[in-house]
Protein backbone atom coordinates (compact mmCIF):
# COMPACT_ATOMS: atom_id res chain seq x y z
CA UNK A 1 0.00 0.00 0.00
CA UNK A 2 3.06 2.26 0.37
CA UNK A 3 3.03 3.31 -3.27
CA UNK A 4 -0.67 4.10 -3.52
CA UNK A 5 -2.08 7.61 -3.38
CA UNK A 6 -4.13 8.86 -0.45
CA UNK A 7 -7.14 8.81 -2.75
CA UNK A 8 -6.63 5.09 -3.34
CA UNK A 9 -6.22 4.43 0.39
CA UNK A 10 -9.44 6.31 1.15
CA UNK A 11 -11.27 4.47 -1.61
CA UNK A 12 -10.06 1.13 -0.23
CA UNK A 13 -11.23 2.12 3.26
CA UNK A 14 -14.81 2.39 2.06
CA UNK A 15 -15.09 -1.37 1.88
CA UNK A 16 -12.32 -2.15 4.33
CA UNK A 17 -12.21 0.38 7.19
CA UNK A 18 -8.94 -1.05 8.50
CA UNK A 19 -7.19 0.56 5.50
CA UNK A 20 -7.89 3.92 7.11
CA UNK A 21 -5.03 3.39 9.55
CA UNK A 22 -2.67 3.94 6.63
CA UNK A 23 -4.06 7.44 6.17
CA UNK A 24 -3.52 8.11 9.86
CA UNK A 25 0.08 6.92 9.63
CA UNK A 26 0.75 9.22 6.71
CA UNK A 27 -0.76 12.44 8.04
CA UNK A 28 -1.35 12.30 11.80
CA UNK A 29 2.00 13.80 12.73
CA UNK A 30 1.57 16.93 10.61
CA UNK A 31 -2.08 17.41 11.51
CA UNK A 32 -1.25 16.95 15.18
CA UNK A 33 1.48 19.57 14.96
CA UNK A 34 -1.05 21.96 13.41
CA UNK A 35 -3.57 21.31 16.19
CA UNK A 36 -0.92 21.80 18.89
CA UNK A 37 0.11 25.10 17.35
CA UNK A 38 -3.46 26.32 17.39
CA UNK A 39 -4.86 24.99 20.64
CA UNK A 40 -1.99 23.57 22.69
CA UNK A 41 -2.72 20.64 25.01
CA UNK A 42 -6.31 20.21 23.77
CA UNK A 43 -4.83 18.85 20.55
CA UNK A 44 -4.59 15.28 21.88
CA UNK A 45 -8.30 14.58 21.75
CA UNK A 46 -8.95 16.74 18.73
CA UNK A 47 -6.55 14.64 16.67
CA UNK A 48 -8.79 11.60 17.07
CA UNK A 49 -11.83 13.75 16.34
CA UNK A 50 -10.32 14.99 13.05
CA UNK A 51 -9.70 11.47 11.81
CA UNK A 52 -13.10 10.23 12.98
CA UNK A 53 -14.80 12.98 11.00
CA UNK A 54 -12.58 12.18 8.02
CA UNK A 55 -13.54 8.52 8.28
CA UNK A 56 -17.23 9.34 8.32
CA UNK A 57 -16.82 11.52 5.24
CA UNK A 58 -14.50 9.21 3.33
CA UNK A 59 -17.12 8.36 0.73
CA UNK A 60 -17.40 11.99 -0.29
CA UNK A 61 -13.63 12.41 -0.72
CA UNK A 62 -12.81 13.87 -4.12
CA UNK A 63 -10.83 11.01 -5.66
CA UNK A 64 -9.31 13.41 -8.22
CA UNK A 65 -7.07 14.71 -5.43
CA UNK A 66 -4.24 12.24 -4.81
CA UNK A 67 -2.93 14.03 -1.70
CA UNK A 68 -5.36 14.13 1.22
CA UNK A 69 -3.38 16.63 3.32
CA UNK A 70 -5.46 19.69 2.33
CA UNK A 71 -8.67 17.78 3.01
CA UNK A 72 -7.45 16.80 6.48
CA UNK A 73 -6.25 20.36 7.15
CA UNK A 74 -9.74 21.54 6.23
CA UNK A 75 -11.39 19.14 8.67
CA UNK A 76 -8.89 20.03 11.39
CA UNK A 77 -9.56 23.72 10.80
CA UNK A 78 -13.30 23.26 11.23
CA UNK A 79 -12.73 21.18 14.36
CA UNK A 80 -10.61 23.89 16.05
CA UNK A 81 -12.59 26.86 14.79
CA UNK A 82 -14.92 26.64 17.78
CA UNK A 83 -12.00 27.70 19.93
CA UNK A 84 -11.38 31.00 18.18
CA UNK A 85 -11.71 33.05 21.36
CA UNK A 86 -9.16 31.08 23.34
CA UNK A 87 -6.87 31.20 20.34
CA UNK A 88 -6.89 34.98 20.62
CA UNK A 89 -5.67 34.69 24.20
CA UNK A 90 -3.11 32.12 23.14
CA UNK A 91 -1.48 34.32 20.50
CA UNK A 92 -1.24 37.15 23.04
CA UNK A 93 0.47 34.78 25.44
CA UNK A 94 2.91 33.86 22.66
CA UNK A 95 3.66 37.54 22.22
CA UNK A 96 4.53 37.82 25.92
CA UNK A 97 6.85 34.79 25.74
CA UNK A 98 8.47 36.15 22.61
CA UNK A 99 9.09 39.49 24.30
CA UNK A 100 10.59 37.84 27.38
CA UNK A 101 12.87 35.76 25.27
CA UNK A 102 13.95 38.69 23.14
CA UNK A 103 14.61 40.61 26.30
CA UNK A 104 16.80 37.89 27.77
CA UNK A 105 18.73 37.36 24.58
CA UNK A 106 19.80 40.89 23.82
CA UNK A 107 19.56 42.84 26.96
CA UNK A 108 22.15 45.35 25.84
CA UNK A 109 20.30 46.24 22.67
CA UNK A 110 17.05 46.46 24.51
CA UNK A 111 18.51 48.96 26.92
CA UNK A 112 19.74 51.00 23.99
CA UNK A 113 16.36 50.89 22.25
CA UNK A 114 13.83 53.46 23.19
CA UNK A 115 10.83 51.10 23.31
CA UNK A 116 10.25 47.84 25.05
CA UNK A 117 10.23 44.70 22.89
CA UNK A 118 7.01 43.59 24.51
CA UNK A 119 5.17 46.51 22.91
CA UNK A 120 6.15 45.34 19.44
CA UNK A 121 5.06 41.76 19.90
CA UNK A 122 1.84 42.64 21.61
CA UNK A 123 0.98 44.95 18.72
CA UNK A 124 1.40 42.03 16.32
CA UNK A 125 -0.77 39.80 18.51
CA UNK A 126 -3.42 42.50 18.90
CA UNK A 127 -3.55 42.99 15.15
CA UNK A 128 -4.51 39.37 14.54
CA UNK A 129 -6.17 38.29 17.80
CA UNK A 130 -9.62 39.39 16.73
CA UNK A 131 -9.41 38.63 13.01
CA UNK A 132 -12.59 37.02 11.70
CA UNK A 133 -12.29 33.22 11.77
CA UNK A 134 -12.17 32.87 8.01
CA UNK A 135 -9.19 35.21 7.72
CA UNK A 136 -7.45 33.72 10.73
CA UNK A 137 -7.78 30.18 9.34
CA UNK A 138 -6.45 31.24 5.97
CA UNK A 139 -3.58 33.17 7.51
CA UNK A 140 -2.40 30.31 9.71
CA UNK A 141 -2.59 27.73 6.95
CA UNK A 142 -0.37 30.00 4.89
CA UNK A 143 2.07 31.38 7.44
CA UNK A 144 2.39 28.57 9.97
CA UNK A 145 1.59 25.53 7.85
CA UNK A 146 3.12 26.88 4.64
CA UNK A 147 0.37 25.54 2.39
CA UNK A 148 0.08 26.94 -1.13
CA UNK A 149 -2.86 29.11 -2.19
CA UNK A 150 -4.24 26.13 -4.09
CA UNK A 151 -3.95 23.83 -1.09
CA UNK A 152 -5.65 26.37 1.16
CA UNK A 153 -8.44 26.78 -1.38
CA UNK A 154 -8.93 23.00 -1.39
CA UNK A 155 -8.79 22.79 2.41
CA UNK A 156 -11.34 25.53 3.03
CA UNK A 157 -13.38 24.82 -0.09
CA UNK A 158 -13.09 28.39 -1.37
CA UNK A 159 -11.80 29.90 -4.62
CA UNK A 160 -8.09 30.74 -4.86
CA UNK A 161 -9.03 34.41 -5.32
CA UNK A 162 -10.66 34.38 -1.91
CA UNK A 163 -7.49 33.00 -0.34
CA UNK A 164 -5.56 35.84 -1.94
CA UNK A 165 -7.95 38.56 -0.80
CA UNK A 166 -8.09 37.23 2.76
CA UNK A 167 -4.29 37.18 2.96
CA UNK A 168 -4.11 40.68 1.54
CA UNK A 169 -6.44 41.97 4.22
CA UNK A 170 -4.36 40.27 6.91
CA UNK A 171 -1.18 41.74 5.40
CA UNK A 172 -2.68 45.20 5.48
CA UNK A 173 -3.49 44.84 9.16
CA UNK A 174 -0.03 43.63 10.01
CA UNK A 175 1.63 46.27 7.85
CA UNK A 176 0.16 48.93 10.09
CA UNK A 177 1.90 47.44 13.10
CA UNK A 178 5.28 47.57 11.25
CA UNK A 179 7.76 46.04 13.62
CA UNK A 180 11.17 47.69 13.50
CA UNK A 181 13.18 45.28 11.37
CA UNK A 182 16.12 45.08 13.79
CA UNK A 183 13.81 43.43 16.30
CA UNK A 184 12.76 40.71 13.98
CA UNK A 185 15.96 38.68 14.14
CA UNK A 186 16.62 35.80 16.55
Amino acid sequence: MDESTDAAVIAASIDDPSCFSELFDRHARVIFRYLVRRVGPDADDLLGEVFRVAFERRESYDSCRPDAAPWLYGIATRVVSKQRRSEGRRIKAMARYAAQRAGAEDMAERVAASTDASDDWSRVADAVADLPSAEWDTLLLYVWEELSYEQIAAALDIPVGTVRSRLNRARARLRDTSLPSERMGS
Partner: protein
Amino acid sequence: MSDELEPLRQLRPDNVLPADPGDPTVLSRQKEQLMSTIAHEPETTLQLPDIYPRVAYNDEFAALDYLVSVFGFTELREARMEHEWDGRTQMHAWVRMGAGVVMISHANHDVHRIYSPSELGNTTAIFHVKVHDIDSQYAKAVAQGADVTMELEDAFYGERRYEATDLEGHRWHFAESHDAIRARGGEVPDDPQGGKP
Protein backbone atom coordinates in the same frame (compact mmCIF):
# COMPACT_ATOMS: atom_id res chain seq x y z
CA MET B 1 6.83 35.12 2.37
CA SER B 2 6.36 38.85 2.55
CA ASP B 3 7.63 40.85 5.46
CA GLU B 4 4.26 41.80 6.91
CA LEU B 5 3.61 38.16 7.75
CA GLU B 6 7.06 37.42 9.16
CA PRO B 7 6.28 38.54 12.75
CA LEU B 8 3.30 36.22 12.85
CA ARG B 9 5.46 33.33 11.67
CA GLN B 10 7.82 34.09 14.55
CA LEU B 11 4.90 33.93 16.96
CA ARG B 12 4.16 30.36 15.92
CA PRO B 13 4.13 28.58 19.29
CA ASP B 14 6.87 26.11 18.42
CA ASN B 15 9.09 29.06 17.48
CA VAL B 16 8.36 30.83 20.75
CA LEU B 17 8.19 28.10 23.36
CA PRO B 18 11.15 25.96 24.31
CA ALA B 19 11.23 22.79 22.22
CA ASP B 20 8.77 20.47 23.85
CA PRO B 21 9.26 16.82 23.09
CA GLY B 22 5.61 16.26 23.95
CA ASP B 23 4.05 12.95 24.75
CA PRO B 24 5.42 10.42 22.27
CA THR B 25 2.50 8.08 22.90
CA VAL B 26 -0.19 10.51 21.72
CA LEU B 27 -0.15 9.37 18.13
CA SER B 28 -0.23 5.66 18.86
CA ARG B 29 -2.87 6.13 21.55
CA GLN B 30 -5.10 8.21 19.28
CA LYS B 31 -4.62 5.75 16.45
CA GLU B 32 -5.61 2.83 18.64
CA GLN B 33 -8.75 4.63 19.78
CA LEU B 34 -9.62 5.67 16.26
CA MET B 35 -9.30 2.19 14.81
CA SER B 36 -11.28 0.74 17.67
CA THR B 37 -14.06 3.29 17.09
CA ILE B 38 -14.03 2.52 13.39
CA ALA B 39 -14.22 -1.22 14.00
CA HIS B 40 -17.29 -0.75 16.20
CA GLU B 41 -18.99 1.68 13.92
CA PRO B 42 -22.51 0.58 13.15
CA GLU B 43 -22.65 -1.37 9.92
CA THR B 44 -22.82 0.94 6.96
CA THR B 45 -25.04 -1.55 5.18
CA LEU B 46 -28.54 -0.30 4.91
CA GLN B 47 -31.56 -2.50 5.01
CA LEU B 48 -32.57 -3.49 1.52
CA PRO B 49 -35.62 -1.55 0.32
CA ASP B 50 -38.84 -3.50 -0.06
CA ILE B 51 -38.58 -3.15 -3.82
CA TYR B 52 -35.37 -3.15 -5.80
CA PRO B 53 -34.57 -4.27 -9.35
CA ARG B 54 -32.33 -7.13 -10.39
CA VAL B 55 -30.27 -5.90 -13.33
CA ALA B 56 -28.88 -8.43 -15.83
CA TYR B 57 -25.44 -8.38 -17.41
CA ASN B 58 -23.41 -10.84 -19.43
CA ASP B 59 -20.32 -9.71 -17.57
CA GLU B 60 -21.59 -8.74 -14.16
CA PHE B 61 -18.05 -8.36 -12.78
CA ALA B 62 -17.18 -5.68 -15.34
CA ALA B 63 -20.59 -4.10 -14.78
CA LEU B 64 -20.01 -3.85 -11.04
CA ASP B 65 -16.59 -2.25 -11.51
CA TYR B 66 -18.11 0.20 -13.93
CA LEU B 67 -21.02 1.25 -11.75
CA VAL B 68 -18.70 1.84 -8.81
CA SER B 69 -15.81 3.56 -10.58
CA VAL B 70 -17.71 5.58 -13.19
CA PHE B 71 -21.01 6.47 -11.54
CA GLY B 72 -19.89 6.35 -7.93
CA PHE B 73 -22.17 3.61 -6.60
CA THR B 74 -21.06 1.89 -3.41
CA GLU B 75 -21.12 -1.86 -3.22
CA LEU B 76 -22.67 -3.50 -0.16
CA ARG B 77 -19.63 -5.74 -0.11
CA GLU B 78 -20.75 -8.13 2.59
CA ALA B 79 -23.85 -8.96 0.58
CA ARG B 80 -21.98 -10.25 -2.48
CA MET B 81 -22.55 -13.88 -3.46
CA GLU B 82 -20.47 -15.82 -5.95
CA HIS B 83 -21.26 -19.28 -7.19
CA GLU B 84 -20.24 -21.70 -9.94
CA TRP B 85 -22.83 -22.12 -12.67
CA ASP B 86 -22.56 -23.26 -16.27
CA GLY B 87 -18.83 -23.73 -15.88
CA ARG B 88 -18.14 -20.15 -14.80
CA THR B 89 -18.26 -18.05 -11.67
CA GLN B 90 -21.39 -15.98 -11.46
CA MET B 91 -22.01 -13.19 -9.03
CA HIS B 92 -24.83 -11.44 -7.31
CA ALA B 93 -23.90 -8.05 -5.98
CA TRP B 94 -25.81 -5.15 -4.51
CA VAL B 95 -24.84 -1.50 -4.99
CA ARG B 96 -26.35 1.54 -3.43
CA MET B 97 -26.62 5.28 -3.91
CA GLY B 98 -28.20 7.11 -1.01
CA ALA B 99 -31.09 4.97 0.18
CA GLY B 100 -31.56 3.17 -3.13
CA VAL B 101 -30.25 -0.24 -4.10
CA VAL B 102 -29.97 -2.27 -7.27
CA MET B 103 -28.91 -5.87 -7.58
CA ILE B 104 -26.37 -6.82 -10.24
CA SER B 105 -26.54 -10.34 -11.62
CA HIS B 106 -25.74 -12.56 -14.56
CA ALA B 107 -28.30 -12.60 -17.37
CA ASN B 108 -30.39 -15.72 -16.87
CA HIS B 109 -32.14 -17.03 -19.96
CA ASP B 110 -33.52 -20.28 -18.59
CA VAL B 111 -35.12 -19.76 -15.23
CA HIS B 112 -35.81 -16.05 -15.03
CA ARG B 113 -35.65 -15.15 -18.71
CA ILE B 114 -33.85 -11.89 -18.09
CA TYR B 115 -31.47 -10.60 -20.73
CA SER B 116 -28.81 -7.94 -21.05
CA PRO B 117 -29.73 -4.97 -23.28
CA SER B 118 -26.63 -5.88 -25.30
CA GLU B 119 -28.44 -9.07 -26.35
CA LEU B 120 -31.81 -7.44 -26.90
CA GLY B 121 -30.74 -4.24 -28.62
CA ASN B 122 -33.25 -2.48 -26.38
CA THR B 123 -33.98 -1.95 -22.77
CA THR B 124 -37.26 -1.79 -20.90
CA ALA B 125 -36.43 0.30 -17.87
CA ILE B 126 -34.55 3.42 -16.88
CA PHE B 127 -33.04 3.72 -13.43
CA HIS B 128 -33.61 7.08 -11.77
CA VAL B 129 -30.90 7.95 -9.30
CA LYS B 130 -30.92 10.95 -7.01
CA VAL B 131 -27.35 12.08 -6.36
CA HIS B 132 -25.73 14.63 -4.10
CA ASP B 133 -23.75 17.27 -6.05
CA ILE B 134 -24.60 16.17 -9.55
CA ASP B 135 -22.03 18.56 -11.03
CA SER B 136 -19.09 16.73 -9.53
CA GLN B 137 -20.72 13.32 -9.96
CA TYR B 138 -21.19 14.14 -13.65
CA ALA B 139 -17.65 15.48 -14.02
CA LYS B 140 -16.20 12.33 -12.49
CA ALA B 141 -18.35 10.07 -14.65
CA VAL B 142 -17.26 11.90 -17.79
CA ALA B 143 -13.64 11.81 -16.69
CA GLN B 144 -13.97 8.05 -16.28
CA GLY B 145 -15.32 7.71 -19.80
CA ALA B 146 -19.05 7.54 -19.18
CA ASP B 147 -21.22 7.12 -22.28
CA VAL B 148 -23.51 10.12 -21.86
CA THR B 149 -26.72 9.85 -23.86
CA MET B 150 -28.39 13.02 -22.58
CA GLU B 151 -26.19 15.96 -21.67
CA LEU B 152 -26.35 17.59 -18.26
CA GLU B 153 -29.11 20.19 -18.27
CA ASP B 154 -31.49 22.12 -16.04
CA ALA B 155 -34.92 20.69 -16.67
CA PHE B 156 -37.98 22.92 -16.48
CA TYR B 157 -39.47 20.92 -13.63
CA GLY B 158 -36.68 21.90 -11.27
CA GLU B 159 -33.97 19.29 -11.63
CA ARG B 160 -30.48 19.16 -13.04
CA ARG B 161 -30.12 15.84 -14.80
CA TYR B 162 -28.26 13.76 -17.34
CA GLU B 163 -28.48 10.26 -18.69
CA ALA B 164 -25.81 7.69 -19.47
CA THR B 165 -25.65 4.07 -20.50
CA ASP B 166 -23.41 1.49 -18.92
CA LEU B 167 -21.24 -1.15 -20.60
CA GLU B 168 -24.18 -3.27 -21.70
CA GLY B 169 -26.74 -0.58 -22.44
CA HIS B 170 -28.72 -0.18 -19.23
CA ARG B 171 -29.84 3.42 -18.91
CA TRP B 172 -29.08 5.49 -15.83
CA HIS B 173 -30.79 8.81 -15.23
CA PHE B 174 -29.00 10.94 -12.64
CA ALA B 175 -30.66 13.96 -11.10
CA GLU B 176 -30.43 16.49 -8.30
CA SER B 177 -33.25 18.88 -7.47
CA HIS B 178 -32.65 22.60 -7.84
CA ASP B 179 -33.59 23.00 -4.18
CA ALA B 180 -30.82 20.61 -3.19
CA ILE B 181 -28.36 22.42 -5.47
CA ARG B 182 -29.23 25.75 -3.84
CA ALA B 183 -28.95 24.18 -0.40
CA ARG B 184 -25.35 23.17 -1.09
CA GLY B 185 -24.57 26.71 -2.32
CA GLY B 186 -24.81 25.95 -6.05
CA GLU B 187 -26.44 28.19 -8.61
CA VAL B 188 -29.47 27.39 -10.73
CA PRO B 189 -31.13 29.48 -13.43
CA ASP B 190 -34.28 31.39 -12.43
CA ASP B 191 -36.17 30.11 -15.42
CA PRO B 192 -34.71 26.79 -16.55
CA GLN B 193 -35.44 26.09 -20.19
CA GLY B 194 -33.49 22.90 -20.53
CA GLY B 195 -30.24 24.75 -21.22
CA LYS B 196 -26.83 23.73 -20.04
CA PRO B 197 -26.07 24.70 -16.45
